[in-house]
């Protein structure tokens, strides 16, 4: 949209009147701290997003947000809200944009123990809500970004999948009642909140606008501002205040007596999928998370030097079809039962347990199976070489810390999601992620396989990290109903060639997921994403654009990472299809 600069001055004064002068600024140093964003390099080739905000404002209440949005409508000022604000999609995508930083709205409004939900404001992090929920024997879903990030943003505005999805579903599905300041400045109460004043459901009784407000992928801040929402909570069988042991970077939790981790390895993608289905059917697991070998190694080391040494042993790459399973239970008998069932499924699928919270002698059979697989892959001499190198690198860590310790560290990382960023940013400083459709287990596996093929040429060109091509991360959801595996690619953002390569890789991946019918790739945001995916998806972007037109007639809610207005997106998609 064209910004009417003449009324800017009075807009600023009105905004200042709403929040007070200490909570609004247009100072260049502060504007640039919102312009710098991870993944900006994929657009501009630099650390800076394409547009510096015009001003940044810090409201403290829904009423203030509503007043701000009304001023924006009146003066045709585009606005973009962020909460914890991570990645370029949170930054302005147009000139002259007001960045609404929701940092001051950081309260947990309530935790309804009986009905198992929490009501939160935008700046409540996963870490904050989880700590409070656990005190009541409950747990929340924390998306893959980690427990530093906003729960509300993930539930209302993006596609938030996290480690514990097996038992806690994913962020979009955990969304119950919502308070929404629409692009025109109306406050809508969705779900039961709109009908009963209570937050317990996102759909009826009361208006369900789930499809309009977020759909599958979320609007990335392009359709107003979400100021409060309720999130579903789940049972937590661990201690109410888990004791943290160790010191940074090596922390773990004590007292997880009936919460154990099992690193399960299968022999092929097929048996991996088979295992995932059976595990889901059994409904015994709290977590079933797939970390590629590269991330598994990152999880046990304290430095990149250690990482490279272990990686070069080729030990972990020899066991790529792995899944970290966490079993939890409310009683000893149930725990024993669930553990037994897990072992049965592992045996049934011809898999093995590489390590677990408490290693038992019966695991010798798994060791033999592992040796056999190694021999099959590398020959006898090769297997001995891999084992020798692994003993010298990984063995050192196991000797120092113990296998049980590594398992406990992994359990803590899965549950608390405190080290998610370590696992990926240490490989170069940035990453891009693609595929990731929420689909059947078979479709997720197909995506993982295709991701490797698409990535390999970029590894050969030296622009993406050489992770063998496989860095498919994801989990099973709702005890097997769904799975997602996203293909992650690490690169160094300080290298412009690498950044450009990462962007190109993402586009190739979108096209591959479309052409190979792998499911709706979660890069389908912004006009470019819609353009690339529209062929096979019944022109869904037209609906998005129509919704955007209807809810945002003045076009002030910055939708650059969501969808443009109908005529603009249609022209762009038509153009793309011609080329």
């Amino acid at each position, binding site marked *: 949209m064209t910004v009417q600069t003449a009324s800017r001055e009075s807009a600023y004064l009105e905004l200042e009147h709403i929040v007070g002068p200490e909570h609004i600024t247009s*100072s*260049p*140093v*502060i504007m*640039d*701290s*919102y312009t*710098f964003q*991870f993944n900006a390099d994929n657009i501009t080739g630099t*650390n800076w997003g394409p547009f510096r905000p015009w001003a*940044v404002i*810090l409201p403290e209440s829904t009423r203030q947000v509503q007043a701000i949005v009304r001023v924006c409508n009146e003066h045709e000022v585009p606005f973009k809200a962020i909460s*914890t*604000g*991570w990645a370029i999609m949170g930054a302005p995508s147009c000139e002259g944009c007001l960045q609404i*930083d929701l940092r*001051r709205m950081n309260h*947990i409004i309530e935790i309804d123990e009986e009905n198992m939900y929490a009501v939160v404001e935008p700046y*409540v*992090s996963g*870490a*904050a809500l989880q*700590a*409070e929920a656990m005190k009541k024997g409950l747990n929340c879903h924390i998306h893959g970004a*980690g*427990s*530093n990030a906003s729960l509300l943003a993930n539930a209302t505005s993006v596609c938030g999948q996290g480690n514990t999805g097996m038992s806690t579903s994913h962020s979009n599905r955990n969304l119950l009642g919502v308070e929404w300041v629409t692009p025109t400045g109306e406050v809508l109460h969705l779900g039961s909140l709109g009908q009963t004043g209570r937050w317990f459901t996102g759909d009826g009784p009361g208006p369900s606008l789930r499809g309009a407000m977020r759909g599958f992928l979320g609007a990335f801040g392009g359709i107003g501002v979400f100021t409060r929402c309720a999130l579903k909570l789940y049972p937590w069988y661990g201690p109410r205040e888990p004791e*943290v042991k160790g*010191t*940074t*970077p090596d*922390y773990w939790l004590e007292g997880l007596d009936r919460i154990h981790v099992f690193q399960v390895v299968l022999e092929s993608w097929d048996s991996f999928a088979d295992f995932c289905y059976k595990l889901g059917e059994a409904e015994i697991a709290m977590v079933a998370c797939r970390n590629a070998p590269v991330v598994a190694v990152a999880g046990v080391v304290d*430095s*990149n*030097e250690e990482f*490279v040494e272990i*990686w070069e042993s080729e030990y972990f790459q020899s066991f790529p079809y792995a899944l970290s399973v966490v079993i939890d239970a409310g009683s000893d008998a149930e725990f024993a039962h669930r553990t037994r069932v897990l072992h049965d499924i592992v045996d049934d699928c011809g898999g093995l347990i590489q390590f677990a919270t408490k290693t038992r002698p019966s695991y010798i059979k798994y060791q033999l199976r592992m040796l056999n697989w190694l021999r099959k892959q590398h020959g006898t001499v090769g297997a001995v070489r891999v084992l020798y190198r692994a003993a010298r690198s990984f063995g050192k860590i196991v000797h120092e810390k113990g296998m049980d310790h590594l398992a406990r560290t992994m359990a803590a990382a899965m549950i*608390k*999601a*405190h*080290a998610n*960023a*370590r696992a990926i*940013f*240490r*490989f*170069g*400083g*940035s990453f891009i992620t693609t595929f990731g459709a929420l689909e059947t287990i078979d479709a997720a596996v197909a995506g993982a396989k295709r991701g490797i093929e698409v990535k390999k040429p970029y*590894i050969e060109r030296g*622009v993406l*990290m*050489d*992770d063998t091509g496989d860095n498919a991360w994801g989990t099973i959801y709702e005890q097997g109903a769904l799975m997602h595996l996203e293909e992650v690619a*690490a*690169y*160094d*953002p*300080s*290298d412009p060639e690498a950044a450009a390569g990462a962007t190109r890789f993402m586009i190739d991946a979108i096209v591959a997921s479309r052409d190979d019918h792998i499911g709706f790739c979660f890069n389908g945001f912004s006009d470019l994403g819609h353009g690339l995916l529209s062929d096979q998806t019944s022109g869904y972007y037209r609906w998005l654009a129509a919704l955007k037109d209807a809810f945002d007639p003045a076009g002030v809610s910055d939708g650059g990472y969501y969808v443009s207005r109908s005529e603009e997106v249609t022209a762009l998609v038509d153009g793309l299809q011609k080329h």
Partner: protein
Amino acid sequence: MNPRHKLDYYEKDLKRCCHCSMCKFIPLIQVKDARYTQVCPAISQKDFHAYCAGGKLHAALSLLEGRIEPDADLLDVVYRCSTCGGCDVSCKHNRDLEPLEVLFALRAHLVSTGVGPLPEHEPILMGIRNYDNVWQQPRQARGRWAKDAGVKVLPKQSAEVLYFAGCTYSLNRQLTGVARKTVALMKSAGVDVGVLGEEEPCCGSPAFTIGDHELFMEKAAANIAMFNRLGIKRLVTSCAGCFGVMSGKYPAVGDMSFEVVPAVSFIEELVREGGIRLTHPVNMTVTYHDPCHLGRQSEPYIPWEGRELKKLNSVVVHDPPKEYRRGTKGVYDAPREVLAAVPGLTLTEMKRIREYSFCCGSGGGVKSAFPEFALTAARERVAEAEETGVRAIVTACPWCEANLADGLAAGESGMELFDLVDIVTRAMGGE
């Protein structure tokens, strides 16, 4: 200037910051309560992203790339920060970056280009230059606290251990008792201890944190040469600021022929080895506040010279391998062990402790430039202490003591505040 104090030395770190905001929070697994998630006093108060460490890294990059001009807002962002290093610990929980070094380099850059520091910092720097203390007191005033302490005065006499009081414990009348008690305690244990009296110099720490690295280097080099000449085996200091800089920064300036020991560790050693006996009950419940400069910022200097290499296309490794200072090797156990040895005393911990302790808000020149910032941070810390339900806060740093005292005075809790040596003296039967 030491290349590591230069901003462009960190250009890659600036570009590899991922805007994750971890530096705003304590390490996430340590979050035990929604009320106590924050680690950074600066962003806790100012809220705009630029005030967290990541935001300051962006400011530094923007400045280096000429996107912004230095102005008053930049100075506010850079100097409204207690350089407490909480951000550094949290960032390094997941990343191998050097945010705190960048904050220091950014200040040094502003000072060396004539933009910084703030006018309120000038008297401190002038005090160090002209009087060898930050309080602009005459040099003769510095030795007064030890006049009747019956302790050797170096270099006229010689001693195995030099007790280094620091500017504040020497010159702040409310706090000189700490220096006197520490020396008395050492003497009672038969330690061969001496002081420098009015010859005691400023350690230079405030010059470093404010960004005048030229002055700091000058002070540090002269101090190291003097301490070496004294022939001492150990330098013991009660001041966390002095200890932090001598342990973490001096070794990069010159070779030291003596060991630097914080008074709390020295006392712990004396207690453990029976040099002093804690026999008198101190019936009190207390909580312990970890001073940043005794904790995460006192981690010993780790020398490293080498080059950055890339493996597997993008993975940054160092040749030779580089060990990062993650704040874990600070002095955390010694004060707690001393408190545990005091009969009748019970220690209850706050929610943010040790490497992820919340700063009292006094450091980095903020107490002089932004007193209201320092007071708000102190109030936050006092509130956290109050929540433990104890009677007193114990700490071991003159800056923390002065600022927490202001924080307590601004409230109504009636909590008391002690230096660790006060408690030890009482447990020895003194007052």
